[in-house]
């Protein structure tokens, strides 16, 4: 997300880029090898190759962006998996070699991605590579067994193997994607992997089931099954796209509407956006999962909404300079506003407790981690603003550190220091 770009890791290992490059290089070699091999040995069953190639290209053309800035192409993946798991076609044995499956998939993916490239939306190469590698693994494991006729001809011997391979492919793709994200976003691998599995499993289930259905249907119906299948897959895809679309619009709207405090002169321009970027970066540094990060982002964007209850703006919008009771009242009012939305209760709770000290004097329950993060990020931004001066940043961090005894969470301040000053 945006945070990663603003708070570039300083002086850290470049393993992030390396993992991505390694995957790209591997996928590239795979494509070159498979295309060369297929060119030498010739295409086996051209009709099937064309039909599945068309389905994959079509699916790649309709790729969608899932919540959390992820790319997916369910139709293409289903088509590619079905091709890798191909059983006899219309009663005649089909035995595409591993290299042919990989070559057809890769070329079709590239063809489907070209129109996107033409209108200036290049595909994410690492995501495409992860998809290709997962399909290649299924092909490499399944084709030799199936081509040698070791699978038997009844569905109860075929299905368990196919099902197992599809699950493996899903786990592999998720692990590869998580690895890339770990490095891109500076999050932890286990956190990233769990996020990935959580977001992807409904889509993976639909994709896997569709792949199995296509592979079996082709056995009876011949290649007509590929065309007939495009219809229900398309319907599922449309539903997913609408869901992803409204999620994106939602975040965009909260981002925009959180700016009312800026337009009304209550806070400095860009304050909410900066605090939310910094908060999300800190949260990620501390290993928060994606759902929690999203709540943190909403809360950070709207943390100053309570100031709308003030007749006159606080000078400079710097709530850090306002008395504790007043801060609390503003936070309380902001939480009331957010609570009216009825669906953001935990966000409201984060906003409500954003001005509470990390260790309350009366030993009551400390505020949630998200509130502590927003408190520190907000204080930092009030002190530094949009300035990029490193000595000013160091001063601000030092000042926050002085207060870690009771005001600010030392872990949060450490993470913040790491992000804005480098190690």
């Amino acid at each position, binding site marked *: 997300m945006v945070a990663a770009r603003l708070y570039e890791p300083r002086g850290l290992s470049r393993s992030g880029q390396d993992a991505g490059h390694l995957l790209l290089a591997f996928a590239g070699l795979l494509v070159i090898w498979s295309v060369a091999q297929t060119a030498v040995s010739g295409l086996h069953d051209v009709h099937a190759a064309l039909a599945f190639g068309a389905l994959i290209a079509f699916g790649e053309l309709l790729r969608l962006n899932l919540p959390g800035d992820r790319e997916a192409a369910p139709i293409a993946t289903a088509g590619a998996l079905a091709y890798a798991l191909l059983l006899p076609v219309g009663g005649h044995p089909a035995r595409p070699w591993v290299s042919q499956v990989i070559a057809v998939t890769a070329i079709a993916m590239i063809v489907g991605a070209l129109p996107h490239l033409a209108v200036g939306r290049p595909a994410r190469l690492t995501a495409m590579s992860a998809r290709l590698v997962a399909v290649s693994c299924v092909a490499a494991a399944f084709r030799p067994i199936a081509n040698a006729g070791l699978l038997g001809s009844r569905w109860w011997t075929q299905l368990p193997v196919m099902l197992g391979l599809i699950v493996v492919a899903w786990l592999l793709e998720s692990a590869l994607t998580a690895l890339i994200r770990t490095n891109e976003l500076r999050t932890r691998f286990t956190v990233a992997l769990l996020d990935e599995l959580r977001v992807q499993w409904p889509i993976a289930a639909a994709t896997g089931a*569709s792949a199995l259905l296509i592979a079996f249907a082709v056995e009876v119906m011949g290649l*007509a099954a590929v065309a007939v299948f495009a219809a229900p897959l398309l319907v599922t895809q449309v539903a997913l796209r*609408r869901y992803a679309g409204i999620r994106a619009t939602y975040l965009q709207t909260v981002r925009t509407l959180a700016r009312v405090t800026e337009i009304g002169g209550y806070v400095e321009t860009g304050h909410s956006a900066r605090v939310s970027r910094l908060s999300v970066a800190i949260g990620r540094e501390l290993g928060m999962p994606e759902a929690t990060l999203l709540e943190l982002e909403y809360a950070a964007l709207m943390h100053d909404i309570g100031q709308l209850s003030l007749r006159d703006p606080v000078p400079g919008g710097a709530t850090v300079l306002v008395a504790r009771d007043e801060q609390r009242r503003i936070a309380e009012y902001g939480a009331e506003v957010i609570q009216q939305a009825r669906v953001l209760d935990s966000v409201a709770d984060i906003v409500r407790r954003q001005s509470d000290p990390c260790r309350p004097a009366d030993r009551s329950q400390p505020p949630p981690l998200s509130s502590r993060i927003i408190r520190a990020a907000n204080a930092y931004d009030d002190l530094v603003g949009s300035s990029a001066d490193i000595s000013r940043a160091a001063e601000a961090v030092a000042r926050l550190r002085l207060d870690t005894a009771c005001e600010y969470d030392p872990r949060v301040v450490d993470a913040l220091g790491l992000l804005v000053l480098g190690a």
Partner: protein
Amino acid sequence: MGKLSRIGWLYIGAVIAAAVIVLAAGSYSALNWSQIGILGLLLIACESSATLVSARGLAWSANTMAVLAAVVLCGPLGAAIVSCGTLFGIRRGPSATQRLFNTGMYVLSAYLAGRAYLAAGGKVGVPAPSDFPGLIGPFAVAAVVHVAVNFLLITTVCWLASDPGGGAGRLGIDSKVWLTDLGYGAFGVLIAALWSVLGPFTAVLVLIPVFVARWAVAQFAAQQRAYESTVSALCQAVETKDFYTRGHSERVSRGAVMIASEIGMRPERVGAIRYAGMLHDVGKMGVPTSVLQKRSSLTDDEYAAVQLHPMRGLDMVREIGFLDEALAGIMHHHERIDGRGYPMGLAGDEIPEFARVLAVADAFDAMTSDRSYRGARPVPEAIAELRKWAGKQFDPAFVDAFVSAIERDGWTAPEAAPAQEPLRTIESL
């Protein structure tokens, strides 16, 4: 469904009676009951996971695929029997009458689809590889007939249930639902084809993508609700700046939707105008509170600040992935038909349609609620005022649409504003 007239009841009775006749007159000797049973279970699973597709309680389910698979595997009568599963769907919502009607409707459309399949040369039974691709043509005919009969029967009942004068646009289902239905219908032929390979296990595999699609649709609906309530909560927060306008955005949004549906706008555009109504005054955040709450007339500078608010609003919401129309509506909602409005001084048809709709709803709500400089006016007086300025300030067509919508559905004016309640201020600084 709304209130039914006598003709409506007669119609429902006729549909159910026709279904009973179809079921009673058939010959039950050559039916494969295990297939019918499994497809019936599949249909119940689909029916139980129906999703609401319109505010009027119409639901869509993936029944079509089970019915069409039955058409191929068991023939017209078998498909009709499978359709009876509709009666046993496990979901809240439909009343006993609705359930009976739905079942009758599905029995009829399944039977007719089966007949059409046979007439087009389709063969009943588990298809073999040699039957393809010849079977796909008759199957497509059956799918289209099923969806068409379904559409016809349900449109008629909705038409009979709604008050006279409501056009087809008020039905609240868009054509996409019927396309979706056809798309899922394609699963029918796959179930039939896979029967020879996977047997009943097909039903399990087919249900997975269906449930995922249904999950995505439910998530979409939940997100949409969340989105709406969040936008409205944030708009209310903006309104706290000026307590005279409390609820104004919400009411303008409601009024704009009334006009838009009265003139038969498409559902997507009605949705967009609802947001445009909610957000039309967001730019007022940039106008100092002292100006907004001023009781005396404004100075030139202050008036200039007020005139800027549509542009500021546009600047704010530009980044939201909206229909461009909604943006145009927010920007131009203070234009006048005679060209004397602001910010651009557009006239007549140059003013975007959304802006002309919003202008009527905005002015009407302003008149019927309290302001710092005057009290609220009663609704009839405000209507008279709208009519008086139609053609000068407002588009007469939208004024007429709004007036007839109000006369039919009524209008809830805001409660009188309480005695002057000061905003909170910072004393501690």
